[in-house]
């Protein structure tokens, strides 16, 4: 019991260094609880109207959380144990048995674990309704979520984190048990040598990272798997060498310029950093890589979420479309639309001609690969296309120049993956009759649902009339509603009156399923990202504070020889700026290049969601920076002599 009391007192005394660790543990457990509670409430949510399965993705996310928490707890624990070696040495000197010290430390860990689990579950239960509602909102559901305390989720969380903390406690016990007394005393008095930097390695690290950016955009498109492996290897190992060698190298070079180096506090700041960076290089590199991963994941899902509607419209441009069934049927459809309180903003019969065709310059026609395997195109007249464009694709209107020039609409066309055929010849055939046209341009849009058309080709009105005998003309009735994202009922009603073998073109259902899938994805990636961010921020925070506690003497010396408080603060904040900014900048750069690939693959502009993600991430980082600087300064200035 005495040992237990000591353990409790130790936690209270070391509160400042444990506090951030404790908070981020509570936060991790809270997020874990949220994931599993949603997983276990699948059934309840289904009753409330949820149609997608989310338990699998929540299960996957919770496994990621377990792995990450395990690494975080292991890392923090060995860090705190090493930090307190000296204290344990002192106990040993006073005749406390090593087994007792080990036990005391074990109790400490268990106590911390118990408190963190209790805190995490408490806040998890408190916030689970809010988070579940958030998820439903992201998925586009408007269902009422009731406040539930999920026993299974509590039990699951308890089980997982008890094991994690128990293993951590054993690990602490083991560390204590393994040390020799003399080592325990040497813990903090290890003399530091000025780090060396191999200029060759320094340059190599930059080359590696730069090469990874290049391979990401070249090799990846030739052979995705090899490209990805090579890119990841180069980027990650390059990042580690960058922090351990290049940063040191850079600072050593900056020492060469005496004029700058001997100016004011520059010398102290540079040398301090030189030692700091070397000691922290692995942590900083890991943080940069983790940040890049988190940012890419969040950036990707957020961007995709942002682009769901255009994605959904890429195969079906209209709220409602079907093969023309006569005016009487159209009247019924319009009745249904009005009955549901909506109006049409577009209501037209569009004609297309399906014709056998080929583009000799490329192996397959785009529609052949993505469509039903026939070498055919669907010709649409310029005037009809422009009517569609005016309402559906503003700014995309075309004015064809010359008789044989045509424009191809290829929704799967991308400048990287597909064969290029701009300016090539398009051959139309009707038995023995042939017509050669020139592809003037390619548009990445779909003017008619892919179910009614082959590869759409826009031709001049004159040419369209001439091509009527080349193939069979079809009429598609197309509607766009004024509230297309509330078209659920209308679509259901129309389906009821539509003959069974007639296809109903619409993007609403696809939009809804995309929204569900990416709603879950953005929810998971955002929460995981925040956990990563907070955990990495915490690691920097307590590493810096430990250093503050080891290095305060340096600052007292500076104070004694006449460095003002203001200058001290400048030195500290300057140092922290580098420690925080470099991993963040490296992470942001990596993520930008990774996301740039996605931009090319998806063919959509993601600038806005990416900037928003990056800004949010940076803001939280800045918060950690200020927190660290203020705690660091407080520790340093609290010592007088």
């Amino acid at each position, binding site marked *: 019991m005495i040992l237990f009391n000591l353990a409790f007192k130790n936690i209270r005394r070391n509160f400042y260094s444990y506090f951030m660790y404790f908070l981020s543990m509570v936060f991790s457990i809270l997020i874990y609880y949220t994931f599993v509670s949603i997983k276990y409430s699948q059934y309840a949510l289904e009753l409330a109207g949820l149609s997608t399965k989310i338990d699998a993705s929540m299960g996957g996310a919770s496994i990621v959380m377990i792995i990450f928490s395990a690494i975080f707890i292991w890392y923090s624990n060995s860090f705190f144990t090493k930090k307190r070696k000296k204290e344990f040495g002192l106990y040993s000197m006073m005749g406390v048995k090593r087994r007792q010290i080990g036990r005391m430390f074990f109790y400490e860990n268990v106590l911390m674990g118990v408190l963190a689990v209790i805190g995490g579950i408490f806040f998890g239960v408190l916030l689970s309704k809010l988070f579940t509602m958030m998820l439903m909102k992201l998925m586009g559901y408007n269902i009422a979520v009731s406040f539930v305390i999920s026993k299974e989720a509590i039990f699951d969380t308890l089980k997982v984190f008890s094991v994690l903390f128990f293993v951590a406690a054993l690990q602490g016990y083991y560390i204590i048990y393994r040390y020799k007394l003399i080592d325990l005393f040497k813990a903090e008095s290890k003399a*530091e*040598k000025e780090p060396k930097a191999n200029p060759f390695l320094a340059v190599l690290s930059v080359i590696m990272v730069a090469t990874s950016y290049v391979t990401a955009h070249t090799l990846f498109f030739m052979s995705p798997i090899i490209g990805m492996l090579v890119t990841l290897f180069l980027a990650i190992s390059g990042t580690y060498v960058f922090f351990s060698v290049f940063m040191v190298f850079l600072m050593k070079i900056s020492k060469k310029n005496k004029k700058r180096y001997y100016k*004011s506090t520059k*010398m*102290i700041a540079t*040398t301090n950093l030189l030692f700091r960076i070397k000691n922290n290089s692995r942590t900083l590199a890991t943080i940069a890589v983790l940040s890049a991963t988190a940012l890419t994941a969040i950036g990707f899902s957020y961007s995709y979420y942002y682009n769901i509607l255009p994605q959904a419209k890429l195969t079906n441009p209209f709220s409602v479309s079907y093969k023309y069934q006569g005016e009487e049927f159209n009247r019924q459809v319009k009745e249904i639309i009005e009955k549901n309180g909506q109006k049409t903003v577009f209501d037209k019969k569009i004609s297309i001609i399906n014709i056998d065709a080929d583009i000799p310059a490329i192996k397959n026609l785009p529609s052949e690969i993505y469509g039903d395997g026939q070498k055919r195109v669907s010709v649409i007249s310029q005037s009809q296309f422009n009517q569609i464009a005016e309402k559906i694709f503003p700014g995309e209107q075309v004015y064809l120049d010359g008789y044989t020039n045509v424009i191809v609409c290829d929704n799967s066309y991308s400048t990287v993956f597909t064969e290029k055929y701009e300016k090539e010849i398009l051959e139309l055939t009707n038995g023995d009759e042939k017509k050669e046209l020139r592809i003037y341009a390619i548009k990445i849009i779909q003017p008619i649902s892919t179910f009614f058309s082959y590869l759409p080709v826009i031709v001049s009105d004159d040419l369209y009339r001439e091509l009527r005998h080349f193939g069979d003309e079809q009429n598609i009735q197309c509607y766009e509603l004024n509230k297309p994202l509330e078209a659920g009922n209308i679509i259901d009603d129309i389906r009821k009156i539509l003959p069974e073998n007639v296809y109903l073109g619409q993007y609403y259902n696809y939009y809804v399923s995309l929204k569900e899938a990416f709603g879950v994805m953005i929810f998971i990636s955002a929460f995981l990202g925040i956990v990563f961010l907070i955990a990495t921020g915490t690691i920097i925070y307590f590493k810096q504070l430990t250093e503050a506690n080891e290095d305060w003497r340096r600052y007292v010396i500076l104070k004694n*020889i*006449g460095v003002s*408080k203001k*200058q001290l603060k400048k030195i500290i904040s300057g140092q922290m700026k580098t420690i925080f900014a470099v991993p963040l900048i490296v992470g942001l750069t990596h993520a930008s290049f990774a996301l740039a690939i996605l931009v090319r693959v998806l063919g959509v502009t993601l600038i806005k969601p990416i900037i928003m993600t990056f800004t949010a991430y940076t803001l939280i980082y800045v918060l950690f920076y200020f927190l660290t600087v203020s705690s660091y300064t407080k520790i340093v200035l609290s010592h007088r002599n």
Partner: protein
Amino acid sequence: MDTVLTATNLRKVYGSRGNLYAALNSIDLEIEKGEFTAIMGPSGAGKTTLLNIISTIDFPTSGTVMVDGQNISKMNENELSDFRRKKLGFIFQDFNLLDTLTVKENIILPLTLSSVKHTDIERKLNEVSEMLGIKDILQKYPMEISGGQKQRTAAARAVINNPALILADEPTGALDSRSSADLLGCLENLNKTNNSTILMVTHDAFAASYCKRIIFIKDGVLFTELYRSGTRKEFFQKILDVLKTLGGDNSDII
């Protein structure tokens, strides 16, 4: 001759109501330019308190301290920092060198903080490192050199900005006798050739015997003063005699 330091009626009281303890009790002190002075006294006599007050690290309860014509009791923190950097040089018992800086960088630290031109820095460094005999170790780090070399590095740092007053707190406290003698020789040399004013706190009679003047304090008040005459050996004997009458920690005397 110019007066570098004037302390008038210095009092320093520790503790709170009911349990007061006067570490210094109306001390008056004057030090002229070019003097090499030691403050001696038994443990608890107030030596370090006096030095800390002169160093501007601690503040007197009452009384004034004038250094180089400036009243340091009236300065705010920023002014004090500036003042310490420009007017004072420090040598501490435990060296107080920054282990992340080379010997050279440690020495020139006060100059870089005052943003002196780098060519001037190199010139000054050359001067002091030659005087203190540490030219060969300028590129080394503190952990690679001996205690004596460390203290000479600290001394070089203390003098490089030509301070009005060099303050040394038990500078030989952590050194063996050989290194102590070397360091004291260096300080004596600085005092002679550079006309540096040095005020040193020590309880080592041998160290004190290098000085020109010794102030003895006991229980927070000035006890007596000795001026050097004759050889160092004779002076050393006189110091021992005073210490005997002073009483206190006899074990420290030899």
